[in-house]
């Protein structure tokens, strides 16, 4: 159970050129990363479609990482650039659907250092744990059982969840009097992260400790 | 028809409307309105002098409004009784008190503007219904473009065009340019065997279209016809032979497949889209003229007549008759024959008429009080 603490599910599309070399090196070095991370090697980051990313989110993935070659280093000359466009488009769509765009991360790097690769995953996991903790509303809802999560994290989550609920009620009240539009409401909702930042900070600490232990 | 008109024991009450029917003394008391013709039936000999001088033109309903008649007219040439009628909706004298030229030219003095519609009564022992049919208006089938594409016409319009007394004197001229139509397509089941309109088979259209196509070839040796059908229902003695003869001797092409859509091609030529279900291919065919074999319906006021007489009619307005006694309606003493009880062709109508007449005379001669005028 302890290993699962702050262990968000990450789907990583890894280009089989530079980034995959980095992942291989991480393995050769005996480095480890979150157990809920799945690596999907792709010929080039340019083949990753918006649909594939969105489908991942439909299947209860917490975050999608695309590891592409650094600028100017694409084996197919511009796959990484087209991937940037896809990522931008997908983030726009995620935003409209109420899914935090930070859940999709693109890393453009030709660095084949395994340590960097693992650090990248760890850092992303921390960010996702934070997002999961604070934004109860947009978390993947159905199949994920609460029992999977350690008690502490779920408590933090529960408190974080309460706040948006309150904010929502307040917002509905305001609109009921006709003084506020729902757009203004969304601005009000945007303030919440500050309140939840405590929980996020707490969540950030733990995976870091875990990373140390593994090393 | 002429036989009936001349029969000494048959009195025709043409241009009349049955207003009310009640049962009295075991028979029927019938109230009738005899509409004013403004022409004395006993004097007029239908010479046509009045028609030649009448200045008022009216759409000719008998010719499917393809040409015009005058305000004084003979509904159609073989009509019985053969007397003129003045149309009060159009006649200048009856509307505005001006003109009256027909009265001036009539040598017999048959025109009578003072004539009024009058009531009449009949006491009869039995009634025979023979209210016939009307045809389906294909306008709702917008995919066939009737009313929009000029050279798409109905079967009845074709009948008038090919008829020597019709608007073109028997020439199959196109509505768009008055040129002879050589390539003619017949669209069967227009409104028939269609759950959206008439879910029954109109039964006469297959033979009718074959006949029309044969007539076309007789009038024009270059004529080529296409009959698009769901399946040909030529059920009668020698009917199959007739169809074969049409194919072999009259240039008729039978295509199995209902026409899906008619578009307007260049030069006002209709273009038919269809699946030839034998080759399983979607094809299009451009022709000079399309004839829609429209469904046959009971006459529009058949249902009202049924109500008045207490006779059961079905949801289309066809008179319901007893399966075991096919001339008998649901009301005793009332019989039916012909198309008013369901689609049938002329020989069958004649046979049914004889049956209904003998059922009626059986009843009347059996001792029930015979009607007296």
């Amino acid at each position, binding site marked *: 159970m302890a290993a699962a603490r702050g262990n968000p599910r990450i789907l990583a599309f890894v280009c089989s050129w530079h980034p995959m070399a980095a992942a291989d090196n991480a393995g050769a070095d005996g480095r480890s990363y979150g157990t809920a991370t799945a690596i999907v090697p792709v010929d080039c980051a340019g083949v990753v*479609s*918006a*649909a*594939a*990313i*969105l*489908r991942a*989110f*439909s299947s*209860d993935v917490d975050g999608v990482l695309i590891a592409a070659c650094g600028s100017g280093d694409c084996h197919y000359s511009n796959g990484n650039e087209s991937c940037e466009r896809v990522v931008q*488009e997908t983030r*726009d*769509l995620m*935003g*409209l*659907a*109420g*899914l935090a765009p930070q859940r999709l991360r693109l890393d453009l790097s030709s660095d084949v250092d395994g340590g960097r690769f693992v650090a990248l995953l760890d850092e992303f996991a921390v960010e996702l744990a934070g997002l999961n903790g604070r934004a109860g*509303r*947009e*978390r*993947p*809802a*159905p199949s994920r059982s609460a029992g999977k999560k350690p008690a502490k994290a779920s408590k933090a989550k529960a408190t974080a969840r309460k706040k948006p609920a309150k904010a929502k009620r307040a*917002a*509905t009240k305001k*609109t*009921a009097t*006709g003084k506020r*539009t*729902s*757009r203004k*409401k*969304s601005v009000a909702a945007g303030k919440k992260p500050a309140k939840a930042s405590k929980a996020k900070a707490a969540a950030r600490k733990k995976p870091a400790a875990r990373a140390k232990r593994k090393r | 028809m002429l036989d009936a008109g001349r029969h000494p024991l048959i009195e025709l009450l043409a241009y009349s409307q049955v207003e009310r029917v009640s049962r009295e003394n075991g028979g029927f008391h019938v109230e009738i309105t005899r509409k004013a013709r403004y022409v004395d039936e006993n004097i007029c000999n239908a010479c046509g002098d009045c028609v030649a001088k009448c200045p008022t033109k009216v759409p000719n309903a008998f010719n499917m409004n393809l040409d015009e008649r005058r305000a004084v007219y003979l509904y159609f040439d073989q009509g019985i009784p053969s007397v003129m009628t003045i149309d009060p909706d159009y006649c200048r004298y009856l509307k505005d008190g001006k003109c009256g030229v027909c009265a001036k030219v009539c040598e017999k003095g048959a025109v009578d503007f003072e004539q009024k519609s009058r009531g009449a009564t009949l006491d009869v022992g039995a009634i025979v219904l023979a209210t016939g049919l009307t045809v389906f208006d294909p306008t709702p089938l*917008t*995919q066939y473009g009737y009313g929009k594409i000029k050279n798409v016409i109905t079967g009845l319009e074709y009948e008038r065009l090919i008829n020597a007394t019709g608007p073109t004197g028997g020439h199959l001229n196109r509505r768009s340019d008055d040129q002879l139509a050589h390539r003619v397509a017949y669209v069967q*089941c227009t409104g028939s*065997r*269609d*759950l*959206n309109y008439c879910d029954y088979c109109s039964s006469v259209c297959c033979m009718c279209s074959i006949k029309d196509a044969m007539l076309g070839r007789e009038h024009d040796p270059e004529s080529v016809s296409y009959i698009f059908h*769901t399946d040909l229902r030529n059920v009668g003695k020698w009917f199959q032979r007739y169809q074969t003869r049409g194919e072999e001797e009259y240039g008729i092409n039978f295509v*199995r*497949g*209902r*026409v*899906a*859509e008619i*578009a*307007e091609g260049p030069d006002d030529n209709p273009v038919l*889209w*269809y*699946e*030839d*279900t034998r080759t*399983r*291919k*979607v094809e299009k065919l451009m022709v000079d003229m399309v004839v829609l074999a429209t469904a046959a319906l009971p006459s529009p006021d058949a249902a009202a007549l049924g109500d008045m007489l207490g006779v059961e009619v079905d949801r289309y307005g066809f008179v319901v008759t007893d399966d075991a006694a096919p001339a008998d309606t649901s009301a005793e003493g009332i019989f039916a024959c012909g198309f008013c009880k369901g689609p049938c062709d002329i020989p069958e109508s004649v046979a049914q008429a004889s049956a209904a007449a003998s059922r009626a005379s059986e009843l009347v001669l059996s001792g029930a009080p015979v009607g007296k005028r």
Partner: protein
Amino acid sequence: MFEKAIRETKAYYCLECGICTGSCPVSRLNPQYSPRIMVERALLDDDETMLSEREVWDCLTCGTCSARCPSTVDFNEFTRAMRIGARESGFEGVDTHAGILRALMELEARRRGRRDISWVADDLRVSSRGKVLFFTGCLPYYGVVFSELGVDTVGMANSTIRLMNACGVRPVVSRDERCCGHDLYWTGDRDSFKKLARKNLKMIEESGARTVVFACPECYAMFSQIYPKFVGKIGFDMMHISEFLVSHVESGRLSFGEKESRVTYQDPCRLGRFLGVYEEPRALLGSVPGLELAEMPRVRSEALCCGSSAWVGCTRINKSIQLERLSEAADTGATTLVTSCPKCNIHLSCAAKDKDTDGGIEISFLTDVLSDALAGGTES
């Protein structure tokens, strides 16, 4: 396997007359595809082999065949039944736009997030609760996906709100709205469709709306014709924006300024053949002074489909249908082809872009045209 479908679509009434196949815009271009033969094969128990064939996915569900069928066989539902069967057997159609739209719909069915509605223009008035709700459908998403085509679907949503504001109505635009499920329904994904339907009905109930206005005929058709079949009675009124606006034009609350233009109008399958709304969009165009409506030969119930639907399958055949329609539109001499369905707009714009010829016809959305006329009206 198809027994239920045959029973429900009344396929056993088939006369094999060929009207469906002769009417089908796909069959005219693709001899392999025939609605009649599909029904025939189903009746002959050949359905197992059919499920794996690509023809299952070729139907545009435009409804022309069913509208003309003398036996009133519902071929659209027949197609849907085949697609459900195909999916269950592991066969899928080819998603258009690399599956992005389908993925979005599935995402909305499965996740809980609330939509961002910051796309609503600043000068417009919307609310979160009220009597009238504007169901935006997928318009905000299409704005991202189809920006390259130059189709501004967010603009369509905004012009719809602008017109409603002009009528004195401040519509609800809900953050809890979901895709209506149209495309998932017609591609045989029953589960996701039902999830979306339930979420939407709950959203409307919570908004307090008594009337729901749609800019997209597909959403309108789903709500009014399909939802009641699967999720029970609908407790609110529904109308297309054209129906909504016509009543305000008739009552004199809404009027337009002069706009000199010759336009033609594309009847969307859903709004036309499905819902029978033919006159309202025409009445609206007719109420704009100076706007002349030139009709194409195939209109109303005979209108040609925009060539693609439910984001499945887009081949040479679909493109040919679209180009055929565009040339029909251009032949009317109109400079603008007006549609009242965002998808017609997208599909025809795509084809027009591919065609890339000079003097091509401009494609506009109904509410954009009307909203522009509104602006002209206030200036003068």
